[in-house]
């Protein structure tokens, strides 16, 4: 049973089942890419796949054939290390050939280990050193407003990244200038490299912190397509404040032995792990579409 959602900017209906199948395909590509690369970040990439899929296939106003189109909405990735999901989503959207995904992290590839704005079509910003993407996204939102453009800016961030003081400098700034064309999506997966966020550097009460900083807060299940699309669309119409979507996600989502394990934050699957992961994801696909 496919639920239909109508988005504001695109006069088309979205088949949630098709989106879920697409997310499943992107997850399988992420597993393959990371295995081929021999290094890279599995947990966050799999955890944010549903949100990336919703953004690029249901929410964004964009044209993959014209990556520099001035009317496009902007996506900035602040926690650049989850770029496998960005790359795989961009390839599926048509920004560059799917066959290029296997070049991730290889010499001469456009798919750099961390995203570089000048290397790959669709990649708006350079990221990796944490905390920088949100400031860049704010600059873009400010520039678009100066030019009285209606384009929207989405910044995807991690929760561990909020340890960086720069992010809070940025949150204060966005509230001061009432950047209502900006939405930050926080991947609240509760892990960072060294362990659980609340052990390494506690963030809670996170929603209250954002409210105190002058942001409008939405909290969602980051794997529920209708919730994701609804929150991202709602964020566009909140007029008074910038909006943060705290998306509760499962790191490693879709692969049983990776889910919720911080050990999988920054490593790729070995061959047997790749095979096991792909098997599980294929089974999930059959659950969506039948065999």
């Amino acid at each position: 049973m496919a639920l239909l959602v109508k988005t504001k900017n695109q006069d088309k209906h979205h088949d949630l089942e098709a989106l879920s199948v697409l997310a499943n395909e992107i997850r399988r590509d992420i597993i393959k890419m990371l295995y081929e690369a021999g290094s890279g970040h599995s947990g966050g990439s799999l955890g944010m796949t549903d949100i990336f899929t919703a953004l690029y296939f249901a929410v964004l106003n964009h044209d993959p054939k014209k990556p520099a189109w001035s009317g496009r909405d902007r996506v900035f990735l602040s926690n650049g290390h989850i770029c496998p999901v960005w790359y795989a989503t961009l390839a599926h959207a048509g920004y560059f050939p799917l066959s290029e995904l296997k070049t991730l992290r290889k010499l001469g590839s456009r798919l750099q280990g961390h995203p570089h704005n000048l290397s790959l079509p669709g990649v708006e910003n350079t990221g990796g050193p944490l905390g920088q993407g949100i400031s860049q996204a704010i600059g873009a939102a400010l520039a678009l407003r100066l030019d009285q453009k209606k384009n929207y800016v989405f910044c995807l961030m991690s929760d561990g990244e909020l340890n960086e003081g720069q992010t809070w400098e940025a949150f204060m700034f966005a509230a001061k200038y009432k950047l209502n064309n900006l939405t930050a999506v926080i991947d609240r997966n509760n892990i960072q490299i060294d362990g659980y966020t609340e052990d390494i550097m506690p963030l809670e009460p996170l929603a209250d912190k954002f409210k105190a900083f002058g942001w409008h807060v939405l909290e969602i299940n980051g794997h529920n397509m209708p919730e994701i699309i609804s929150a991202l669309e709602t964020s566009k119409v909140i007029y008074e404040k910038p909006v943060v979507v705290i998306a509760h996600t499962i790191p490693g989502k879709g692969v049983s032995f990776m889910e919720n394990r911080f050990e999988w934050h920054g490593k790729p699957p070995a061959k047997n792990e790749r095979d096991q992961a792909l098997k599980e994801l294929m089974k999930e696909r059959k659950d969506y579409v039948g065999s």
Partner: protein
Amino acid sequence: MLVRDVYNEKTIGREPTRNGYGAALVELGRKNKNIVVLTGDLAESTRAQMFQAKYPERFFDVGVAEQNMMGVAAGLALTGKIPFVSSYAVFSPGRNWDQLRVSVCYSRANVKIIGAHTGLSVGPDGATHQALEDIAITRCLPNLTVIAPCDVHETKKAIFAAAKIAGPVYIRLAREATPAFTTPNTDFQVGRADILRRGHHVSIIGCGPILYEALQAAHSLSQEGIEAEVINCHTIKPIDHKTIIASAKKTEAVVTVEEHQIIGGLGSAVAEVLSAHYPVPLKMIGVRDTFGESGTPNELMIKYGLDRNQIIDTVRRMMKSLLK
């Protein structure tokens, strides 16, 4: 090319280089609506305030938050604006070097970074506020142009030139009123060092307001028969190989002068050029691996060996050792 009676200290005009920045910004703002200005709570002392007064809608005070300031500037640049980031050099690019490296230089974002209050001449504020390392930490970054203007007129030209460059530029400014020894008509080109005074015994290569001390030193040395060539190497990156090597070939002796650490500064940049292409005896005048302290600018320049007498001494000793 230089102001008339350049050696007459009674008549020469004095103005801080930062004033040239403020004046140039206002002019740029009028001509180009994509010029935007950011500051980290230092609007008045960086002279960004002059732009703020005219174009408040294109002026953003980010508060005391330099890391965010650099990132916001990058985002503005990636979306078609030409941001001028204004702060003290110890904070920007001092505190936000990572953001300069990744968000601006690696991204080739069209951001202009203005580092005010550089050098010992910051004076009484002391070592914390005296930027003596900014050239070292900027000239090592790919895609970044680095300029240290010598006076208020050259600063204006450097700001105009920076706005025309499609990429990141760092410009180093100073706090004190210093001699305006060039003129509004003096030719200026990014990447081309200018010979301020011709000579054949020794080349004095410098940047920034301290060049006036070098000129005075050369003037004195001339009276004892030493003809020094004085070169204004305002662009530290890309550095002008041609002019530096040609002068070294003529004089066979080089002295560098800067209000900066000798480690990593202009002297190091000149040494890199000469050691690779035309090695000659080289002396570097600059701060010698130490922090500054509180004092008047004049007291500090003498204590740390940057005044004209010490330039004269260095040249004399060098000439003697080379038996010229």
